Every structure is written in structure tokens, then in C-alpha cells.
């Protein structure tokens, strides 16, 4: 296929206008000895029907979506109202550029402004940016921001932060003079406050904690905030399952200074891990150190309301090496989908969605934990994920479930060696009672 729009005649006319006779002459500014003299070694071009066929065939080599799945761990299956797909697939949303020219980008800019407002409302923070790449790098940006603000050498991470988020934070700070320390979890699966009290001191730029945490446990953020504040460390709350914001006390109301998280639950399909949506919010006082684009309200020459990208003196295109972050392209279209999702679900829908997640996950947990040989690993309160310990060994259970069409959960041992035979399970509003009952029945069967 070719997407060129020039006719033979056009090409001739244009070559003549430029004053040359062949396309090759256009490249005479590249030294001859390094110009490619052969065709690239690529498969022959596919026509549209062949292309669709190619991807349908390769898609058949994926089979995970035909299983009844209880996988979560940073990627969540939630219902996506049809209007999200319908509206977000409009060419006017998919194919525009970054809204640097506000007069012809009011649609994108107003969407960002509404998105920022929604994130502020959900997190109860004062300011939100226009998006970052995904949850893990958003958490890393939050750590860098805290380090710029406080300038102290240490960062305290909860051990129950998503392991991938931890790794990304490590990667981002590895060449800077930042030292990372981890805080253990308690028996109930929450941040161990004694361990935190013992480790926190005046050398901390930030305390980073995820809620619901990687084990699915909802943290008591107020108490952690209190300790952080006492030692002048910034309190960063990471939210990997954003649907929880519909019902749980907002991080802002618990004393968070910066909130960073993953917005995939807001209308983005699983998509094998991306594109997702990094979101970030902070207190107004920190705005000058905030990374990423921000939309703001202003007026046009006739006094009418309009929106623009603003505070760009923080950004790389103005400040170059002094910018607060190197981010340029973000996840605008994903933020658009989140905006449509959130506005469609609305005040009641968000609460109801979160409520159903809690009820269904607890129903599953309660019935699973009744099976002989199955233990609820942590006693803390949950949102839609929980950890089970299988006496007879998780691999055995996992295998059996899989043979019966179920992906039972994520084995935790690779990330937490001490959690041998433990698995992380996720139950959302997408699971019917029958699905949960089936899991309970089959797990009971294999462990009998």
C-alpha cells in the first residue's frame, strides 16, 4: 500500500519546480558512500485484506482472553461503556497534534482541563497535570519531584509498592545521589508503622506508599502522613487501582503531598499493558516543580473563555536542561478516554462501581478462605484484590484451574520470596457470582 497523494504528473511538475530531474538528486546532501543502495530487507507489502488477516492469525496465538481470569496486579478488567469507544474514536480526537495552537485545539484543551478537574476531585488534591506515561513512571516522576523539593538524600518506599513501580523508581534515580530504603509490611499486610517509625528520620525527601497496596490491602494513610510530616518528608501516595478512588477516602484528605498513579481502570482496555495513563496531582504550593503539561483557563481577545497549555516555563521546550521533567508527548488520548469514562459513570456510577468491587472481592475471599488448605494471608481491609496462601502449593492449584479454563491469580513468590505458595487474586464488577462460585468449587476440588 502507498499513502502518497501525488500523481505522476504532480511529481514531474514538482521536480521541475525544484529544478531537478530525479528524486535521487534530492538526497545529494547525503555522502554517496553512506547512502543505502539496496532495498531494505523486509517482507513484501501486504494489501489491506492481507494485513487484517495477518493480525487475525497472529492474534489467534494469544489465548488468555478466553479464560476466566482473576489476574489484576496493576492491570484491571473493568467495564467500559460503549460511549467511550464511540466518542474517542472520532478522528478529531485521534488525529490532532499536541494543542500548542490553542485557537484550533479548544476541544483537546477543554478535555484536559476537565480531566485535571476530575483527577483533583477524585484525589482531593489542588492541582493535576495533563497526564504522564503510566503508573510506574508517574511514581518515579513523583519521587524526582519530591527530591527536587526537599533535596534530602533518602527515599522511603513501602515494600508493598507494586514491584514494577519500585523497579522503575530505582531505574530513574540510579544515577542521582538518592538512596532508597524499604519499609516492611505488617502481619495484616499494611505498612509496618513500627518499622516506619524506626527508619524515618530527617534525611528523607519522601515516604512513598501505595493504597490499595500490592497485596490488595487498603492502607491507613493518615497515620503514615503524620509520621512523614513530623520528619518534614513529603508524603507520596501511589494509586495503582484508580477505581478505588470512587469510594475510599481520598489521598488528599489523608495528608498526601503528591499523588501519582495508574488510570488504566478509567476506560482503557488491558491491551497487554499499554497504552495506559499515568496521572499525577499535588498541592498548589509545589506547582513550580510539577512535571508535565498543564492546561489552564484564560480569555481570548474578545473576553471569551478559552483554554491553553500553561506554566510552560517548567517544561523542556522552554527550560531545556533546567526543566522539571523531560516529558513532552504524554498520553493525551488515554486521558480523553478517562474523561469520557469518568463523566459517563458520574458521581453515583463511580461510587457504585467501587462498591461492587469491594462486595464481590470480599464474597470471593470469604468463600475461598473457607476451603480447607486455603488461608487468607493478610487480615487488612481489601478493595478488589487479596492474597491467598495454598498449603498444598500454589503451582498445583494454578495448573488445575488453568486446565479448567481459569487463570487463578498471580504467584507472589517471584517478587516476595517469603510469600511462598501465595497468589494475588483480583475480583471486579466484571465477575459474575457464577464465575466466583466456579473458582471456589474448582479450587475446593483440587485441594480435596
Amino acid at each position, binding site marked *: 500500500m502507498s499513502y*502518497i497523494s501525488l500523481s505522476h504528473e504532480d511529481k514531474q*511538475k514538482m521536480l521541475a519546480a*525544484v529544478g531537478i530531474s530525479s528524486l535521487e538528486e*534530492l538526497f545529494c*546532501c*547525503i555522502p554517496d558512500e*553512506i547512502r*543505502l543502495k539496496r532495498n*531494505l530487507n523486509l517482507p*513484501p*507489502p501486504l494489501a489491506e485484506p492481507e494485513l487484517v488477516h495477518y493480525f487475525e492469525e497472529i*492474534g489467534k*496465538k494469544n489465548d488468555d482472553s478466553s479464560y476466566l481470569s482473576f*489476574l489484576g496486579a496493576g492491570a484491571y478488567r473493568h467495564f467500559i461503556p460503549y460511549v467511550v469507544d464511540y466518542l474517542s474514536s472520532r*478522528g*478529531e*480526537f*485521534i*488525529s*490532532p*497534534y499536541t494543542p500548542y*495552537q490553542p*485557537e*484550533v485545539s479548544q476541544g*483537546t484543551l*477543554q478535555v484536559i482541563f476537565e480531566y485535571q*478537574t476530575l483527577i483533583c476531585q*477524585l484525589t482531593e488534591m*489542588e492541582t*493535576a497535570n495533563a497526564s504522564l*506515561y*503510566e503508573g*510506574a*513512571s508517574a511514581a518515579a516522576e513523583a519521587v524526582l519531584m519530591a527530591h527536587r523539593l526537599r533535596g534530602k538524600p533518602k527515599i522511603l518506599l513501602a515494600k508493598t509498592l507494586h514491584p514494577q513501580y519500585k523497579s*522503575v523508581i530505582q531505574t530513574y534515580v*540510579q544515577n542521582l545521589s538518592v538512596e532508597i530504603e524499604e519499609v516492611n509490611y505488617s502481619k495484616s499486610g499494611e505498612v509496618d508503622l513500627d518499622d516506619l517509625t524506626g527508619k524515618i528520620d530527617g534525611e528523607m525527601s519522601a515516604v512513598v506508599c501505595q493504597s490499595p497496596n500490592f497485596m490488595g490491602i487498603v492502607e491507613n494513610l*493518615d497515620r503514615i502522613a503524620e509520621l512523614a510530616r513530623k520528619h518534614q518528608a513529603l508524603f507520596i501516595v501511589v494509586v495503582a487501582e484508580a477505581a478505588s478512588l470512587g469510594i475510599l477516602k481520598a489521598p488528599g484528605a489523608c495528608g498526601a503531598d503528591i499523588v501519582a498513579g*495508574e488510570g488504566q481502570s478509567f476506560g482503557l482496555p488491558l491491551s*497487554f*499493558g499499554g*497504552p495506559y495513563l499515568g496521572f499525577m496531582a499535588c498541592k498548589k504550593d509545589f*506547582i513550580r516543580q510539577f512535571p508535565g503539561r498543564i492546561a489552564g483557563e484564560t*480569555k*481570548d481577545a*474578545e473576553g471569551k*473563555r478559552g483554554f491553553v497549555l*500553561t506554566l510552560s*516555563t517548567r*517544561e*523542556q521546550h522552554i527550560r531545556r536542561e533546567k526543566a522539571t521533567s523531560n*516529558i513532552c508527548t504524554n498520553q*493525551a*488520548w488515554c486521558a*480523553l478516554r478517562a474523561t469520557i469514562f469518568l*463523566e459517563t*459513570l458520574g458521581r453515583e*456510577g463511580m461510587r457504585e462501581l467501587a462498591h461492587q468491587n469491594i*462486595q*464481590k472481592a470480599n464474597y470471593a475471599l470469604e468463600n475461598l478462605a473457607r476451603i480447607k488448605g486455603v488461608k487468607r494471608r493478610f487480615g487488612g481491609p481489601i*478493595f478488589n484484590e487479596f492474597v491467598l496462601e495454598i498449603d498444598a502449593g500454589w503451582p498445583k492449584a494454578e495448573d488445575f484451574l488453568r486446565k479448567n479454563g481459569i487463570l487463578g491469580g498471580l504467584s507472589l513468590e517471584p517478587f516476595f520470596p517469603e510469600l511462598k505458595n501465595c497468589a494475588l487474586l483480583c475480583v471486579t464488577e466484571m465477575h459474575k457470582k457464577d464465575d466466583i462460585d466456579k473458582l471456589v468449587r474448582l479450587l475446593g476440588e483440587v485441594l480435596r
Partner: protein
Amino acid sequence: MIREPLIFEISAPGKRAFLLPKLDVPEKKANLAGLPLREDIEGFPQVSEIEVVRHFTRLSQANFCIDTTFYPLGSCTMKYNPKVNEKVAQLEKFLFSHPQAPQDLVQGNLEILKSMEDFLCEITGLEAFTLQPSAGAQGELVGMMLIHAYLKDRGHPREVVLIPDSAHGTNPSSAHVCGYRVQEIKSNERGTIDLAGLSRQMTEDVAALMITNPNTLGVFEFDILKIAEIVHGQGGLLYMDGANMNALVGKFKPGDMGVDVIHLNLHKTFSTPHGGGGPGAGPVGVKKQLAPYLPIPVVEKGPSGYVFNHDRPKSIGRVRSFYANFLVIIKALAYILSLGAEGLKEIAEIAVLNSNYLRKSLETVYHLKYSAPTLHECVFSDKFQKEHGVQNIDIAKRLIDYGLHPPTMSFPLIVPGALMVEPTETESKRDLDLFIEAMKKIALEAVKTPEVVKSAPHASLVRRLDETSAARNPVLRWEGDKG
């Protein structure tokens, strides 16, 4: 057109646009006990479905986009986004695939990632690729981290990264985030890197030279082999920002000219849609000796199929959750597969022809600071028009009245009053001619009726917006709920 209110301004209690199925498990108050709960989401909207649909449909109509409008944006490569690529990225087998699923159940996904890496190696002449970076800037950061890790392993990571004064702002910023000190290299009278200057600045403290080739003026670094020699001679590495790869696909392989690390922008060269500012993808390619440092996990083909290898002791680590902006990778792969070798080469040829046609047609009307031959883009300036008090921003905004998107403005920094134009290969001669005609008319207006140009746009939904007061008194969210 009527201005669309904010959704919050049409919200009212009792309206809703979505209903969940009734809860089918027993509801227990005890499940909420012990949880810190919120009373409400203060200010959150409550609207009906038709209100949502009209709201976003109207907002969409307030946008220019590539489906409706020519975007001559320099270095942004706003080309047509083929629709079938959207279709294949929406196949359920990809859309509903969970990133934590067992590897043997996602062999199709892994094959896609591996194929894409192989194709990008062939296109660039580099020897290994990571698809993880979510955008060009993250690609740059990863590239810098790879260089840091590689040099550190060989004894010393060094302190400085050299960057030409014509470079995109992300370059110095990415180097800085990686912990490097940035030193600028002045461009010569051709707008390219000055070899003598480079030789002076290229010391043993320098980790890398970051170049864009062709550079942001559209000029190819003719002395690229000598540049590579100077950098390598001091034990440094050559990084290429591949933002302008559209000028080179199928014509030239960066790996052949001494480039050690490159990032590509799939949302530029490989046609994945910009989405109003992302998602993009910024894969990074490296020479063999840097491959051990690539981010984890790395896709490999093993005896029983594809696997993610996490066991890479020299790796810089993870740079994101999961694996990549996967759907973006699918779209770019679809693009490569549908064009093939001939089609990819045609991209560069026609992009450069279109650009040179624009340059030739406008270079007598708009000042061209650098006269060197250009490839896929060229940078005019407002020098002639400034004599009449008309600046580049005025020209840009006036183009809106002619139904065209403005070019990139005030960049690169080495051209005062820059108007940077990149037409891409997908534009027709008719559309190029409309742009040329509009630019010529505006040049005339600048002389005869400068006020019309200076107060543009006149025909847009909103008039020129006050960006200064937006920054001075930031209003960054709707505050109506605060009274």
C-alpha cells in the same frame, strides 16, 4: 458555533449516563468496616448519556486534526494515520490480553514485539532494540541511561553530554534527568556541527554527542562520518535523535554512519496517530556492545517459543510497568508491513520532494536563514515581515483563517522568528499549493494590511488567547464547586 460549557456546568443531581447490573452477591456492611471511606466525590459530574455524547462531539468539532487539516508542523511529522491500523490494534485478542497472563498464552503478542524489534534493526542498521519507552523523550532518557551504564561498566560514566544549539529541548532535558551536565555546541554558518569546535569540546569527560540528523533545520550532517570519528576517538558514544527519520527511511541507515544509540518516534515516522499529544512510542536501538544494558524484560525466541527474559544482570532496569505502549507498536508494525521496503523508501523520497517544493515556492517570500540544501523540512523566518511589524506568531495565527494549521514556531532557537515547515509525504500537491498560496497572501497582507495579520485569527472558534495571564494567574481546574 456555540461554545460548549464545562461538563460540571451542566451537571445536576439525579442525572446519570450509566447503570451497572444489580449486585449479584450478598451485600454485607461488614465488608466496608475498617475501610477509610469517603462520603462523596465533591463536584463530580452527573449528566445524561446524550449530554455526554453531545459534549464530546461538540468539543471534537473545536479541534483541527489531520483527518481534516494540513499540519505543516516542523519536526512533528504530522502524516496521515491509516485507518486499517486502528482496526487491527482493536482486535479483541490484543485488546483484552492481560499483561500478567502466562507467557505461553500470549505468544502472539510476544511475536509482534519481536518482529517489530527485528524490523527496526533492519531499518536503522542498529543491532538490538527495546520497544519499552512510551514516547521520544523517554527514549532519549533510556538512551542516556544505556550510555551511562555502558561507560560506567568500562570504568567511568563521564560527566558531560554535548548537544548542538539547534536541538529539541527534550535532548538537554533528558541528558540532565540522567545526571549528565549539558554542554552546547554552536552551529556553523551552514547550521550544522562545526568540526573544529566539536574537536575542541570532545574531551575524555564527554560521554556522548546527541545529534539530530537531519537536524532541526532539515539539513543533513554531511560530515557525519568525521563527527563519529571525533566522538569515538575520545571514547564517547554517538546518540541520534531519530525524530527526523522520515527523511531517511530506506535511503540511509544510521547504524552505517557510526551511530551507537538511536530513538525513533513511532508516532512520527511510522504514522501512529498523535491523539492530541500521545500516546506515542519511542523505541531505542543500540549497537551490539550496548545490548546487555537494555531495559528488562527483553523478548527472546527460545526453543519452546517466545519468552520475556528478566535475568539480565547488566540491564539498566525497568523503565515502565509491563512491556510497551503495545497497541501503538501494533499500529506501527501494521504500517511497516503494509508499505514494505519500496513503500518505506517512498516515504523519504516524497517527504523530501514535498518539502523542497514548498521551500522553492516560498523562499523568495519568506526569509531562509540557512541556505544549505534541506531534506524533509525547512525553516523560514519572519525577517521580511518584521519590517512591517508582523511576527511569526501573527503569520501562524493568520494561517488558521485560511483553514490551515500553523507551522512550528520559534524553534529551532538558532533561527529568530522561526517558522518551521514539514509537509510529510502524504500531502497532495493541491494541499501544498493551498498552503503556498495562503503563505504568499499573508506575506502581502503583512505589507498592506498588517493589522489584519496581527489580530488574527478572525475565523476561529476563539480569538487569540491570552497565554500570559493564564500563566500569571493560573486557573488549572474548575472551581465552581468551591462556590
